[in-house]
Every structure is written in structure tokens, then in C-alpha cells.
């Protein structure tokens, strides 16, 4: 059976695989992979922070979130936010 690569599985988790790729992942699915998907989905939620748009006006943003945002930890990391 074909192994699913880490990147393929991460893209599957994000819903960024084309249909053919999704079918390949489902065809190679097993209990271990299912568990990895479940725990990874939960784990990613642990570190979720507000997006730039939501956080910019909040008082707490300046103190807590801004340093993290500046370090690239908020929102889409590849977006050009004009900094």
C-alpha cells in the first residue's frame, strides 16, 4: 500500500488537496492515520490566535498578541500585510 507523506496528510487536513489527492489519501487510510488526523486537528486549535483583522482593535492585542503577530504567528503567514 502506498504511504501518505506528511505533507500530503497536512494538505488533506487543511482541505487543500485536489480531488485526486483526496482520493489517494482515503484509499491509503488506516487506523493510525485516522488517529494522527484527529489529534493534529485538535492540536492545531490549541495554538490558534485571532487574525490580524480581529485582533488589531483589541486592547489586549497590543500587550499579548502584537509581539506574536509581528513574529508571524497570526493569520495567514504568507499574506502581505504591508509591514
Amino acid at each position, binding site marked *: *500500500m502506498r504511504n501518505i507523506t*506528511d*505533507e500530503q*496528510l*497536512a*494538505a488533506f*487536513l*487543511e482541505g*487543500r488537496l485536489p480531488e485526486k489527492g483526496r482520493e489517494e489519501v*482515503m484509499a491509503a*487510510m*488506516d*487506523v*493510525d492515520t*485516522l*488517529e*494522527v*488526523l*484527529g*489529534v*493534529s*486537528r*485538535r*492540536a*492545531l486549535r*490549541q*495554538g490558534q490566535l485571532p487574525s490580524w483583522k480581529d485582533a488589531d482593535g483589541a486592547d489586549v492585542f497590543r500587550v499579548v498578541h502584537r*509581539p*506574536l*503577530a*509581528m*513574529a*508571524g*504567528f497570526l493569520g495567514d*503567514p*504568507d499574506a*502581505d*500585510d504591508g*509591514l
Partner: protein
Amino acid sequence: MNSRLGRVIYMTDRETVESLLAGDRRVIHDFFCVRCRPALTYIGRYFCQYVESPEDLIGEFYEFLSADDWHKLRIFKYSCSLNSYVTIIASRYFQHKRDRGLLSLEENMAGAVNVPDCGRDVFFMDALQKAVKNMHPFDRFLLQRILIEGNKPGDVVEEAADIIRMDGTVRTDAADMKALAGYVYTRYNRARKSLRKSLEKAGYGG
């Protein structure tokens, strides 16, 4: 884009990877100890019942990810976010570590439940559902909440205690919640192995 305001830097995933590969100590620290910390802590606690401190987990994962001159990052093609990519790598790493530690639980303790051999035309999730249906209700509960939903075994202990009280068919000597947590962890792993065996028998995985 990479703009600096004092020590603060905004970095894209590509820039982060390049800085990690270049051995930038500040980026390495921020990446592992700030950015990945919540996810790594969650994953570590999910897979390892007697978990080390978050620092130990982070240190161990750093060793793994940086091995072979950061091979895992060098082959990254940016088809997904770096966060998701690293999270999947960490989940697989700690899953493998747990399974190595559970070798003593192997074969004899995890008997396969019967699941019809449906052939390759039936999807994995259908086969999974059929296999789970044949299992004990308490095992079904554990597989649903931990395997499928991704909750940490420790997070379902109170719910498990309620079910055990109401069910009456689950036998455990656990005298307190700590012992029950151990029971839940062990029983979940046994149920998972049993499920895996059943699905392998039906032609999925293995």
C-alpha cells in the same frame, strides 16, 4: 517579506524554514518554544500517558526535526501551512514513540473483532463503522472520543467514569481517578489495536 522592528520580525513560512535551516538561534527558539509549544504539548499529552514536561517534549521533537540536517524541512514543498506540516510530523513521531512503548501490550491482548471482508470497493470509513459496531459499548465510546475526535485520553476520564457507573459490565479495579486514567489509556490502546487488526484482516492498512 521580512521587516524588522527592533527584535520583532514578521516571517513567511518560507522565511521561517530558511532561518531554521540556517541555524538562526532566535528563530529556532521562537519556532519551537512559542509557535509550536501548544500543539506539541497537546500531542505529547495525547500519546504519552506519563508525559514529560513541555520542555522535554519540545527538546525531543527539536532533536527529531533537526536530524539529518533538517531533512523533513528540506523536502517541504509549501503545499500546506508550515504549522499543519509540523503538527502532522509531530503526531506521527509521538504516535510511533507510544507504539514502541506499547509492544508488551501486543498480539495476545488485542484480539480482532469480526468484520466482514467487504472487498476494496467499500471505503475505509464504512469498514471502520462496521468493525466498531461489533465492539463493546465502552470501547466504542473510547474510540469515538479519542481516536476519531482527537481528545486526549486524560480528557475523557470523567465521562468514562460516568459510563462505567451506568454500564455495569465494565470491570476495573481502579480505586481513584488517577488509576481510572491509567485504565482508560490502556483500554483505549487495546481497543485501537483490536480495531486495527480487524481492519487489516478486512484489507485496510497493514
